[in-house]
């Protein structure tokens, strides 16, 4: 009798295995890699970014978005150190990844040759236009920093009253910060009617009073920033103390502050406090304090995976979520065509993402489009302004005109 029971259990187990095993045997796992600064410099952006990527891929697997197939994205902390990024990338290659997500401008430029040799499609968190020079495999998620700075400059020119606007640039002392300077100068050369009075490369200054006074003495009316939030917050607080922040756009005798993607977001408001009021910011991402299907999806995702309010509302969470959405979409398209999910096929699918095949992730203000000649994803930008301590959109999404003229 006892023997019979054991035999019955074994039969049952065998039957269950026969039903489930073929499904699991056919199920595939697609390996991806992400190396970024979860700790160390810029981790304030990298941390929510990694959560966005992690949560979205978890969501894909949990909801069986790819059927029985799953995505296994290994996320590694590189502490903003290129040598560690290189090591992580080698590790991912050993694991057999089909798609790679990178982070900083420095490491993207440093590994560019490796991406070419490996023919590895890559989406970095850096929107530096220089990433695309002599590169076939790097795809920017949204408009480049150059396009963002030009977009802000075009807004200044269109809305400035009386004469030629005098502009200063406040930039990070690296390739990341310097990237848009030359392109903006080219736009001015191509007919954008503004004067770039000074380009300030900030250091680790804790006080910008002297710099601001110098800009005022030179008649600067607008400052376009291309850096991270903390130096902008320092500058805004000092400008506020000096009574230099324009309360309305282009207010005479005051300075209107504007910035590209990584200068803004909730962290800037948290750092600068009331001094962030009337700061103009551009990005291609939606913000969660304005209702939209994308914002709802972002907040729901963060809630599902128990993320705190700060991460849930971060534009860098949206940023990470969006690149994961794009990677998932190309895998889906590859599968739908019956093609094997390889880095070569994913690369082809990315380049075919245009026209009626453009992808709308919802987390951005426009569709993601790539082609053989266009490796910048979302071309549209949205302008936001801080009102009452939150970023509010102003106007409709736009595409900078002078990016095509330079």
């Amino acid at each position, binding site marked *: 009798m006892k023997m019979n029971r054991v035999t019955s259990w074994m039969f049952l187990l065998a039957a269950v295995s026969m039903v489930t095993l073929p499904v699991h045997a056919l199920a595939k796992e697609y390996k991806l890699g992400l190396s970024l600064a*979860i*700790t*160390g410099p810029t*981790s304030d952006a990298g*941390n929510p970014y990694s959560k966005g990527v992690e949560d979205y891929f978890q969501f894909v697997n949990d909801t069986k978005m790819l059927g029985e197939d799953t995505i296994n994205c290994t*996320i*590694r*902390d590189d*502490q903003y*150190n*290129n*040598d*560690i990024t*290189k*090591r*992580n990338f*080698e*590790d991912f*290659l*050993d694991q057999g990844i089909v798609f790679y997500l990178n982070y900083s401008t*420095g490491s993207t*430029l*440093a590994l*560019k*040759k*490796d991406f070419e*040799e*490996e023919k590895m499609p890559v989406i970095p968190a850096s929107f530096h236009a*220089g990433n695309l020079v002599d590169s076939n495999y790097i795809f920017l998620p949204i408009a480049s920093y150059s396009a963002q700075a030009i977009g802000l400059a075009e807004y200044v020119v269109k809305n400035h009253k009386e004469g030629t606007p005098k502009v200063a640039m406040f930039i990070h*002392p*690296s*390739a990341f910060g*310097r990237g848009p300077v030359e392109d903006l100068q080219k736009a001015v050369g191509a007919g954008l009617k503004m004067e770039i009075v000074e380009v300030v490369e900030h250091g680790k200054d804790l006080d910008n009073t002297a710099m601001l006074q110098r800009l005022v003495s030179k008649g600067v009316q607008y400052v376009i920033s291309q850096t991270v939030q903390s130096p902008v917050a320092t500058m805004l607080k000092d400008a506020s103390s000096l009574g230099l922040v324009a309360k309305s756009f282009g207010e005479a005798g005051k300075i209107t502050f504007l910035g590209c993607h990584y200068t803004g977001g909730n962290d800037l408001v948290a750092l600068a406090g009331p001094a962030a009021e009337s700061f103009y910011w551009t990005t291609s991402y939606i913000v969660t304090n304005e209702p939209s299907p994308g914002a709802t999806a972002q907040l729901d995702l963060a809630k599902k995976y128990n993320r*705190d309010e700060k991460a849930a509302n971060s534009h860098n969470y949206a940023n990470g979520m969006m690149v994961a959405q794009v990677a998932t979409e190309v895998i889906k398209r590859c599968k739908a065509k019956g093609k094997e999910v390889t880095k070569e096929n994913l690369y082809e699918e990315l380049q075919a993402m245009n026209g009626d095949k453009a992808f709308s992730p919802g987390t951005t203000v426009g569709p993601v489009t790539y082609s053989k000649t266009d490796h910048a994803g979302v071309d549209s930008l949205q302008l936001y302004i801080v009102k009452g301590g939150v970023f509010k959109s102003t106007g409709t999404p736009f595409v900078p005109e002078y990016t095509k003229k330079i």
Partner: protein
Amino acid sequence: MSANRWLATGNYFTSYREEQRIFFTSLDRTAMGLLLAVLFAWPFFLELDNKYMLVIDNILVAVIAVMGLNLVTGFAGLISIGHAAFVGIGAYTVASFSRMLGENHLLLSHGWPVMIILAGCMGAVFGALVGLPALRLKHLYLAIATLSFQMIFQWTINFMNFFNQGQTISVTRVTWVTGQVSRSQHYMFWYYALLVVIVLCGFGVRNLLRTRYGRCLVAVRDNDRAADAMGMHPGFTKVYAFALAGFLAGVAGALHAYLYRGVGVESFTLHHSISYLAMAIVGGLGTLHGSFWGPLAIKLLDLQVEQLSEWVGAHVTAATNLATALRPLSFGLVIVLFLMFEPRGIANWWRIARSYVKLWPFRY
């Protein structure tokens, strides 16, 4: 010395010549031969992922750099906290040729041994120049002078267009007798190249210390006035100590450039200079094998702390800032602990272990 050099249980020198031998006993020579054989042969029996090969290669590059630092700081007693800048000089020598001649120029791809020596020479020139203040300055003041060189180096690279403003300058793959070194062979190839360079440099430094020039370094470190009175030239000795350190650092820099196939200023910052100094202290200042132990210990510690902080950052969100601080914290702690409890570094543990084995079974 015992008549039988296999059975020697102590150092019984009867002449200065015996004391200057590279290997004191036949056992030493055999052990070194076996070690080298193992180092050259293990890749034939054990296949490691590229990730780990990169870690090993990185340690070997640091060994060469620390060997140079040990010459100037350990043997000559001249504090240098700008050593990463000398390594950077070597790397940027390769990068400059890459910019001027084109990335795939034959000199860079086929003449890479020449480029490595050239980078070393450039490091030596800058070393000698930076060493000039050592004629007038000592101790903390000299440290500040080398620090200023580090700052000047970083500033120059960061702002000059020729150096791509610190952004990565690509370096080509090299060609060997079997053709261009492919991606799959890259890290193994450089492992062997680094090993050969280390053996050459190691024997070079060991030999230097047997010569009057080497003894001058130690004499100047111990008392430069006494050395002067004995007929040595302290000024010349200090300058060539810096030049030699610069040469080895330059070689390490060129190897780093070829290994990573690119040169960016981020790899040669003040943080790296302090790391090299830490490696020299932890390994054992003024010892040749301390230059091997230090990089090995610090790089492996770095790797472990990196994994720990990654784990903390990923699992304990509230402790992200703590995770960020773990690396510098552990790094600083290790240096302080070594300075307090083992100022002679790991090399001293090695010395104790060796003397124990040598005297076995006649322990005292």
